[in-house]
């Protein structure tokens, strides 16, 4: 516990310039690939031309019917595929022309903004020195859930990004043999971890729902930009408005991403090609958006805010941190604060006794 507590911020501060350098060099490269991809799309596939060449004897009416997919039979026994899949072309265009570049822009833009923000504004420091008294903020179960979900999210994001962009970078970089296992690994992980992520996300959302109902003070919090605008720290309960927004994003877009993912992940329920195309588009937009926002969440929870990671790592936050960021919650739980030194010795005892500090989300208050 201690070691984590001490080394994490250190590591991060050390890695910062290295990370930046990578981002700086990678972004233009990625943009270049996007541009290449776009120019490729610009030549435009033309299934009409292909089939006109392939079935020249067809007249205009037949044509229209072929495209509409009405009234046909197929030598494939269970086929639901009409002769022409007009939406395939649309899907391709949306995916390659819009989603791929704009996803990259969103994620790259978010990284750039965070970097800029960090360079200009820097870390949100504790205003008061640490009191040394700790308050239990995240139970072990909640932390486990959070880190599971977080790990899965990151894995899914990385594998997902690899599925979308990897071929431009890693295939030429590492060669076919490595790329083959890399990409099939990505797909396997993505497909098998996705449903697990979905289950855990639903659980965590249910557990944290109690904290995240919007309250009056949240508007004030937002108005003050979480304390960055104007003077004084805005009021916040257990969860501040920023966290609530993240929660509700996950509760809405996240669920949509999971649902659309499941549509693609379980093609054995006879959903049509069209359904899966739409699922893919929704999934990609949602996932790329969430990934971009997640970068913000990660930043705020680690580099951006002194003392925040500590809470999710150990479960306890310093009184000063609680007072500064979640003053309303602090008022509720301040008498449960314990001495940091004593906590070390009686950790197991405290944990078992105070499993759910403050307003217990699992119990009625």
């Amino acid at each position, binding site marked *: 516990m201690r070691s984590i507590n001490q080394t994490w911020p250190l590591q991060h501060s050390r890695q910062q310039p290295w990370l930046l350098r990578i981002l700086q060099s990678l972004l233009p490269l990625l943009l270049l690939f996007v541009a290449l991809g776009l120019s490729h799309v610009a030549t435009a596939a033309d299934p009409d*031309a292909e089939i006109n060449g392939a079935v020249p004897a067809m007249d205009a009416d037949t044509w229209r019917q072929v495209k509409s997919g009405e009234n046909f039979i197929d030598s494939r026994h269970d086929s639901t595929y009409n002769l022409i899949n007009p939406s395939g*072309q649309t899907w*391709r265009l949306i995916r390659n022309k819009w989603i791929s570049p704009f996803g990259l822009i969103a994620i790259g833009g978010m990284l750039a903004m965070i970097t800029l923000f960090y360079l200009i504004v820097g870390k949100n420091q504790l205003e008061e020195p640490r009191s040394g008294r700790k308050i239990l903020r995240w139970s072990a179960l909640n932390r486990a859930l959070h880190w599971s979900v977080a790990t899965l999210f990151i894995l899914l994001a990385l594998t997902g990004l690899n599925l979308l962009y990897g071929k431009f970078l890693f295939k030429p970089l590492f060669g*076919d043999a490595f790329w*083959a296992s890399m990409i099939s690994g990505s797909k396997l992980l993505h497909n*098998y971890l996705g449903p697990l992520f979905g289950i855990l996300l639903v659980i965590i959302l249910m557990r944290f729902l109690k904290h995240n109902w919007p309250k009056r003070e949240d508007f004030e919090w937002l108005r003050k930009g979480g304390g960055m605008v104007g003077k004084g720290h805005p009021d916040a309960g257990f969860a501040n408005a920023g966290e609530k927004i993240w929660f509700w994003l996950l509760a809405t877009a996240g669920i949509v991403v999971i649902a659309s993912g499941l549509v693609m992940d379980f093609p054995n329920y006879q959903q049509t090609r069209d359904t899966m195309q739409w699922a893919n588009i929704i999934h990609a937009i949602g996932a790329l958006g969430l990934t971009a926002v997640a970068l913000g969440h990660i930043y705020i929870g680690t580099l951006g805010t002194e003392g925040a990671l500590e809470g999710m790592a150990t479960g306890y936050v310093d009184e000063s941190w609680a007072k500064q960021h979640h003053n309303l919650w602090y008022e509720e739980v301040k008498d449960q604060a314990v001495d940091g030194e004593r906590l070390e010795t009686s950790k197991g005892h405290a944990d078992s006794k105070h499993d759910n500090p403050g307003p217990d989300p699992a119990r009625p208050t």
Partner: protein
Amino acid sequence: MAQMKFMCDAERCIECNGCVTACKNANETEWGIQRRRVVTLNDGEPTEVSISVACMHCDDAPCMAVCPTDCFYKTDDGIVLHDKDLCIGCGYCLYACPFGAPQFPQQGAFGERGKMDKCTFCAGGPADNPEEEYMKYGANRIREGKLPLCAEMCSTKALLAGDAQTIADIFRERVVRRGHKDGAWSKLGDAPSAIDNMASDATRKP
């Protein structure tokens, strides 16, 4: 370089499914995988028309554009092939393909589809040796100077395969004859050579 294409003369296709089983014969795809299929519109109505379809080996192939693993490539003959070692069975090529060409041996949970399979224009695919190629992709008739078996075996010579220009010329010739009541054929005379060209429609050049 030749640009290989298929062409189906809908005026002649009688939905006998010969092309479908010819493909099975050449490539031995498993139950459920029909690299070539016959689609019939308005079945049983006066406007009934049948068309044999497989991979069209598109000039700008959508499958190629959307493949996350970049497993597709185009041969010098314009044939779109794919590397089954790279394929992860994600199904994107199936979403994108205008013609329903890509098929998967399964449609399992967790997106387990197996390796995508599609028409290779009987040109096999990337492999280290002919045996591996045959086991993975089926026949490589192109290497032997032959054309895809589906077109070679078409019962009415409706399905043509070969260089795009050549097959377009054959088709144009047919259209000319069809358009001339009592006309064009007699002009050619009954010389066996003229008749034979018309009949065989040279799916394979001698």
